[in-house]
């Protein structure tokens, strides 16, 4: 199934949840936050939030800025 992560298309297995996506992207242990279709997914819900086809996922973190 295809989703969009940070504006890029990405193939993920059906029933893939957010925790699995982050693990696969090697972001599981990184400090980041996540939106699916503009809705924030709390960290506590990562394991239970199942992604749907064409979901728009945004994963953000802190970078240098002023």
């Amino acid at each position: 199934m295809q989703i969009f992560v940070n504006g890029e298309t990405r193939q993920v297995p059906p029933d893939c949840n957010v925790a699995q996506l982050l693990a696969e992207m090697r972001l599981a242990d990184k400090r980041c936050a996540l939106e699916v279709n503009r809705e924030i997914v709390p960290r506590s819900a990562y394991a239970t939030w199942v992604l749907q086809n064409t979901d728009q996922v945004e994963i953000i973190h802190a970078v240098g800025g002023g």
Partner: protein
Amino acid sequence: MSALPSTEPHHADPLIIAGKRYTSRLLVGTGKYRDLEETRRAVEASGAEIVTVAIRRTNIGQNAGEPNLLDVLPPERYTILPNTAGCYTAEDAIRTCRLARELLDGHDLVKLEVLGDQKTLFPDIPATLKAAEILVKEGFKVMVYTTDDPLIAKRLEELGCVAVMPLAAPIGSGLGIRNPYNIRLIVENAKVPILVDAGVGTASDAAIAMELGCDGVLMNTAIAAARNPVLMASAMNKAVQAGREAYLAGRMPRKLYGSASSPIEGSFF
């Protein structure tokens, strides 16, 4: 000297934002540095306790294993101030703040800026007012970037912002305080901390801001774009303290003519 307030201005004279006490009145940004190590050393030399960061997609500045900004600036040590840099609408700014709060486990202190123009990076005042109102309602502690319009500054305070941060000059311009008169008016009328945000270029600019009665200064480019950022960070650290102490000490009155420092009496010549 250690007993003198003059040498321990911090403990004697804290900066209080949203109920939290800070000993440093210099807030710094984390952009435009050569690398994270330079960022770390400059922030350390600046003595800043509050550091502002931008919120961006993870696929930016994120190579496998590369340290993350928050690894070198741990939230346990620094108060992280996520900003809405680059947002040109109230909606984008609000969305950014919500993500930042999630990112920082509910930490709700944010720096709101809604830009109106890519050339000057001046704030869009109507959009800033709108975003500030919504964010305050959502429980954010809003430190807001604005122009030096004293009435807009007052309105932002009335909306519930925890600090108002007028620009000294355009972001990244280094032109110094273009209109000290307005900054002074803002300070006179404020009940929340007033911090000059943006436009400082060198140490004396920071000292002048503090001498005008500002509660603090936030800067990024003045340090990061100096030839020696770490040394400039140290300079700014001292300049902000110097300006604050001069403000508290009460400067001498200006005189149009000379006034001797040595006694006239007792001259033998």
